[in-house]
Each structure stands twice: as structure tokens, then as C-alpha cells.
């Protein structure tokens, strides 16, 4: 099912939590939703799950409009909320049964479906415990189980790995990747590496507006039109003169000394130019030798920070 968000605005009082945002998620796509706290991620997700209704704009899931047909949308969405609210006094199995019944799963199938969820989410050892007795990681898995139990076409996951230990994070990520193959998934996170690893596309939202929309590769290319190299040279006597010589190169735009004592520099080339050859040539001419010549890829972190720092 496709998710289409068109010109959606949502105000809380006078403040616009979400300001005229538009994006689409295609069937089978995993979208990473990034943004600083308070950017509007959770508000957007709540609007898609039909918990709140936008003040302006259109939202549709699988062709159903959020305004006219929220019940149809709710049948097809699994939602893992940021706070993962659960009934603490209920046993895991009882809770999953409750959710299964609410979703209208036929009585004969419920038992099988619950066991399937327990297996998929690794809840085998905890299924008889009360939810309040579980650790955060297992509570998160219960949250995921209730989001998946009715096999929805769409999954909305708000910070699914928040608070988990590194082992659990890897497991949940694998789970999401497997599930994501046939479902439409929106996943929000602060962990940029995670978004890059699990998502096909990334949307960055800042102060209620979308500031980036594309694959990780596209975002990098857009942010970094220039080649950046990390250069370490040995055999030279004066770091300052190396610095100056590098700057004088035809293809070089900026040279940034990283460490004078080890003669390490960051060399940014001019637009669409590469300086590898000229640096190599310079070293040969001066009798220096290169100990390091590596490309520095703009990290997603840096793109994120740049996009969300400006006003």
C-alpha cells in the first residue's frame, strides 16, 4: 500500500508542529524518517495512523483517505508508538489475544497467529509473564508483536530501537529488514547509521518542514559536490610549505591541516575535479612519499546536522 502525504499542516495552539509537508512512500519501500526532537516526526506518524487529524492537507494510505475512511486505514496499519504504551498488568499472551480480537482475526486463527508472533519476536520465554515484569527490550518486542499480529500492509515504527542494548538493536533491525521486504514501512530514528542500514529512502524533517528527501546516496551527492581527500605525507621537512604547495595545486579548492606533526591534511577539490593525480605528481616532484590518500565520504551525520542547524 502506498502512503501519500500531501500539503499536511498540523497546529498545536499557534505553533505549527508540521508545516505543509508532502512525501510519498511506495509499496514495499522502507522509509527512514529523520529529524531532531520536536521536528514533527511523531506528529506526522500519528496523523498517518489516524490518531490525530491534520488541520490542512490530504493523507491517504492504500488509496483510503484519512479524513473519510480512517477505519479502513486502521485495519491495515501496525503502529509501534514512541512510548510503546502497554497494559502493564496483562500477561503477554492475553494482551496479544486482546489485540488479535480487536483486529477481527477469526477465532480459529488467533492461537496460531499469536504463536507465530511469539516466535518472530523472540518472546518464547516471556509469554506467560505480565508485561510490567519484562525488561525494556522485551517490552519493545511485545510492542512490535502487537503491531504485526494482523499482518498489516503498512508499518509505522516510531524509534523502534530506542533504549535497546546493542544485541537487541541488531535483532530488531534484522526483523525490520525481513518484514520490510513486502510491507510499506516508515521508521523514525535518531541513529543515522541504522536508518542508512535499514532504509531504502530517507526523509529529513526539521521544524515541521521537510528539508531532504532521497536515498542515502542521493543525499550524499547533493551535499557533497566536491571530492574530499585525507592526505598524509612523509619525507618533507616543513609542514607549512607542504600546506602552501598543496594549496597552489590547480585542482585544489581548500586545504585543511588536520595534524601538522604527522603532515596530515584534508584536501577539498574544486567542483567536479579530482586532485589525486596532482597530489601524486607534487609528491614525486618534491621527493615526498604518500602514506595516506583516502576519500572522505560526507557522513550522513554531517548532512543531517547541516540541514537541521540552519533556520
Amino acid at each position, binding site marked *: 500500500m502506498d502512503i501519500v502525504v500531501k500539503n499536511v499542516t498540523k497546529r498545536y495552539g499557534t505553533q505549527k508542529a508540521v508545516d505543509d509537508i508532502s512525501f510519498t512512500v511506495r509499496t514495499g519501500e522502507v522509509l527512514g524518517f529523520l529529524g531532531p526532537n520536536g521536528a514533527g516526526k511523531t*506528529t506526522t506518524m500519528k496523523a498517518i495512523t489516524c490518531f490525530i487529524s491534520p488541520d490542512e492537507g490530504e493523507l491517504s494510505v492504500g488509496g483510503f483517505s484519512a479524513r473519510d475512511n480512517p477505519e479502513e486505514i486502521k485495519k491495515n496499519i501496525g503502529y509501534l*508508538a514512541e*512510548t510503546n504504551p*502497554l497494559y502493564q498488568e*496483562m500477561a503477554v499472551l492475553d494482551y496479544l489475544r486482546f489485540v488479535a480480537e*480487536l*483486529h477481527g482475526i477469526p477465532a480459529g486463527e488467533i492461537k496460531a497467529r499469536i504463536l507465530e508472533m511469539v516466535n518472530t519476536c523472540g518472546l518464547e520465554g516471556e509469554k506467560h509473564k505480565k508485561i510490567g515484569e519484562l525488561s525494556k527490550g522485551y517490552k519493545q518486542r511485545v510492542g512490535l508483536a502487537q503491531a504485526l499480529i494482523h499482518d498489516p500492509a503498512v508499518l509505522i515504527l516510531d524509534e523502534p530501537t530506542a533504549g535497546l542494548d546493542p544485541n537487541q538493536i541488531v535483532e530488531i533491525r534484522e526483523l525490520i529488514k525481513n518484514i520490510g521486504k513486502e510491507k510499506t514501512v516508515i521508521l523514525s530514528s535518531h541513529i543515522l547509521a541504522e536508518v542508512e542500514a535499514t532504509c531504502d529512502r530517507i526523509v529529513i524533517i526539521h521544524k515541521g518542514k521537510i528539508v531532504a528527501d532521497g536515498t542515502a546516496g542521493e543525499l550524499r551527492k547533493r551535499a557533497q559536490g566536491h571530492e574530499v581527500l585525507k592526505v598524509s605525507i612523509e619525507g618533507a621537512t616543513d609542514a607549512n610549505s607542504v600546506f602552501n604547495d598543496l594549496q597552489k595545486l590547480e585542482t585544489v579548492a581548500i586545504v585543511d591541516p588536520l595534524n601538522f606533526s604527522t603532515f596530515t591534511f584534508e584536501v577539498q577539490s574544486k567542483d567536479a575535479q579530482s586532485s589525486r593525480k596532482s597530489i601524486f605528481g607534487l609528491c614525486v616532484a618534491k621527493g615526498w612519499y604518500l602514506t595516506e590518500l583516502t576519500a572522505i565520504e560526507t557522513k550522513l551525520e554531517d548532512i543531517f546536522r547541516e540541514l537541521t542547524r540552519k533556520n
Partner: protein
Amino acid sequence: MRQIWIIAKRELSAFFDSLIAYIMIVLFLAFSGLFTWILGASIFFINQANLQVFFGVSYWTLFIFIPALTMRLIAEETRSGTLELLLTKPVNDWQVVAGKFLSTFILIVITLMLTLPYYFTIWKLGPVDHGAIWSGYLGLLLISASYISIGIFASSISQNQIVSILTALFIGIFFQLIFGALASASSGFMSSVFNYLSIQTHFDSISRGVIDSKDLIYFFSLIFLGLAASEIAVAKRNIVDK
């Protein structure tokens, strides 16, 4: 309808799992038993085979206990966020409110059914007006339903359970006592207005065995108003959150 029942079932299990149900039943039976059979104007004291004493005691014990049952119904779910999750499932505000109402009502029915031994006892002791007994129970069910709906409303407008129970008692006392008092204190048209608003009037009328449409309309209006107001409060909360 099915969704309402699923929610009611869960809520009822929660009442029993948390022991609230057991405590409520035991306390209610203790108070009822004490004041019906042992203390004060008990059946043995009055020497009549009817349950008027019991109905009179229950009029007050239900008034006090029901807000305690309803106080967490919506307030706790709003505070913990489970209401938010619930409403992203194929369930609407009305079904949530109705489900919680139904579960509490069933609990009261169970509690009242546990007092049937009183009925069988006086049946053995002397001449019983069976109609009066049944209409007495009907009266109790109707005032229970009314207080449940007021209690749910009080729970829907706050995230704090203490505020909930106090609000429910505050609203309830008007219907329970104040309107009746105002009716006695005034005269003419105002007096009959207050008289009609007082739950005591309608309870007395029904317990006497007179099932007048006037009284039924009163109760059903009160119940419906409480639940409708609760639904509106729940719907508005969607937008206020975070």
C-alpha cells in the same frame, strides 16, 4: 458491537486480576450484610419480610463505591498512553466508552446477584412481596448505571485518578442529595424541577414497584448524557495530546 464486547471483556478481567473486583464485592457485601441483618434498623428489628433496608443501604454504598471503580477507567489509559494505541486500532471512541461502561455494569450485576441469598432468606422467613423485591433491584441497577456513566465521564476529563473520583462524587452528590434538598427548600415550579432531577425521587418511585416511563426516561437520559459527554472528552483528547 463486537468491539464493545472485546473491550468490556478485557476491562472485566482487569477488574478481577487487580483484585479491585474482589475487594469491592467483599466490602459491599460486608456493609450490606451488616446494615441489613445486624445493625440499626435491620430486618429483624423492623420485623418485616422485605428488603427496603438493603435497598436503602445500597443506595449509599453504590454511590460511594462506583466512582472508585470508574476512576481509573479512562484516566489511567490517557496517562499511560494506552488510549492512544487503542484508538489506532479499528475501534472508535464510542466503542471504548461503551465497553468500559458495560464491564463495570456487569461487575455490579455480579455483586448484586451475590445478595440474592438475602431474597431467598426472607422468602423463608415471612410473606414476601416479590414484585417489590424485583423492582428494588431494578432501581439499584438503574442508579448504578447512572453513576457508572457519571464516573466514566469524570475519568475522561482528567489523567489523575484522585481528581476523577472526587469529580464523580461531586457531580453525584447533586443527584443523590442536593437536588432533593433543594426540592424541599423551594416551592412551586422550581420545587418540581429539582424534584425531577433528584435521583432519590425516581429510585423511591421504582422501588415501590411503580415502573413509570417518566422515571425510565430520566435514568436513560442521565446514562446516555454521561456516556455521550465521555465520548466527546475522549475525542477531544486526541488533538490535545503532545
